[in-house]
């Protein structure tokens, strides 16, 4: 597999990909709206409250959920806490460096978190142990282990799968261990704009070629829960509406495929 060490897309690859897109084809035979094959393995880390290893094409991420008791935030005394963190591990790409989260990992974490929070997948009101004093804190930590594009969707899939299979260790607080109560499942769909085309689940080369990126997260009811535009290019409003439609349709397909 080609190793573009510094992540700069060559003119040769640029024209090869563009030429194929003109015929509606992508390097691996996918259609413009097709996602790569995803493998989701839950309970990958049995010691964690919940976990999921996701392989999306060659991208690989591992999400782990830890649930611990703690104090609620002062402004929401009757709510549990959900917090999401993403680490771009240096093993995932030749130029990734170890260190505190950079703007890329922070953006991914916040977009994934927004999708989960706004879809009310987790009802934080149900995470109270002692109102105002003790609540459950749900830590979602996602480690990127192999990078071939579309980290946002891979991380959302991993976080959602991990949460869906998580258990609250209530026995530590005198209760009984129980599954983390979850409701609607958010699915994020990320597309990049290459020329006039919107290409879903871009691999690294497609991301490098894209001028702009848009992520739309939807729930079963077809409602939009989160959106994020990335990169320095721009979209027309028609393109945004098209992206929302694609996300809703593709989201439904993915939800049926992986979460039914």
């Amino acid at each position: 597999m080609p190793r573009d060490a510094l992540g700069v897309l060559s003119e040769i690859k640029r024209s090869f990909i563009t030429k194929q897109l003109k015929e509606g084809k992508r390097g691996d035979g996918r259609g413009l709206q097709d996602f790569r094959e995803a493998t989701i393995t839950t309970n990958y880390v049995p010691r964690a409250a919940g976990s999921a290893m996701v392989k999306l094409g060659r991208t690989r991420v591992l999400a782990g959920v830890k649930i611990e008791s703690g104090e609620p935030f002062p402004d929401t005394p009757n709510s549990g806490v959900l917090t999401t963190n993403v680490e771009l591990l240096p093993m995932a790409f030749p130029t990734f460096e170890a260190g505190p989260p950079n703007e890329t990992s922070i953006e991914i974490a916040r977009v994934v978190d927004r999708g989960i929070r706004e879809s009310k997948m987790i009802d934080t009101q149900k995470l109270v142990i002692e109102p105002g004093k003790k609540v459950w804190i749900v830590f979602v930590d996602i480690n990127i282990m192999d990078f071939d594009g579309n980290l946002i969707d891979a991380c959302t899939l991993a976080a959602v799968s991990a949460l869906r299979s998580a258990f609250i260790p209530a026995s530590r607080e005198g209760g009984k261990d129980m599954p983390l109560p979850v409701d609607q499942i958010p699915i994020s769909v990320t597309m990049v704009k290459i020329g006039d085309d919107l290409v879903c689940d871009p691999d690294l080369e497609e991301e490098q070629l894209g001028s702009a990126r848009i992520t739309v997260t939807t729930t079963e009811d077809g409602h939009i829960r989160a959106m994020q535009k990335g990169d320095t290019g721009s979209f027309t409003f028609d393109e945004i509406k098209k992206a929302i439609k694609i996300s809703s349709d593709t989201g439904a397909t993915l939800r049926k495929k992986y979460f039914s």
Partner: protein
Amino acid sequence: MGSESNIKLLDENGMRLDGRTPEQLRPIKIETNLLERADGSAYIEWGGNKIMVAVYGPREAYPKHTQDIEKAVVKARYNMAAFSVDERKRPGPDRRSVEISKVISEALSSAIMVEQFPRAQIDVFIEVMQADAGTRIAGLTAASVAVASAGIPMRDMVVGCTAGKVEGKVVLDLSKEEDNFGQADLPIAVLSKSKKVVLIQMDGDLSMEEFEQASEMILKATDNIAEIQRNALTSRYSVENIGDGE
């Protein structure tokens, strides 16, 4: 090491909490090349340990002032995932990780033919996804496999094991409880063929005889573990895995 506890780590028959005999290893499984971007990689399960190791290199050392004009610098980075331990760990290196990274780098440097790569560095990323005692040895054992799978020349493979003392008895391959509540912890790694020691640390209380007993057990175990390393590397090239040209 050696916290106060009422846990009985050995029963009347000398059997350990997890049912093992004093000289018995926990189950070990190693797989190679699960990662696409890295130059070499290995995944190890050892007891409840689940560790992924990725190798990049040799590549030009960066920043430039870290370059050694005569040889490659081996930089191991041992890191524990936030969800790898019972109480969630804040991401990022702590003092323990830094020390472990150092001793692992040094152990690998004994084996790797670093003189062949002046001005270069070899990065070894050890990610502990689930921890279950003996992570540094498991990580180093897998790292040796990952370095070999990256096509980096080595004098020998590096293989290791831990031993300790539990209620006065020397035991091989400490479990989590034995590590937390036992009386000694001795991780050792050697060059596979020559048995030269490339990593040795110890904390606790061991007499000279107990140390000899423990190190004998470890040396014997390294032969078994070396076989597991060999199978991990060669299995993907076995006859059964080759099709008819398709």
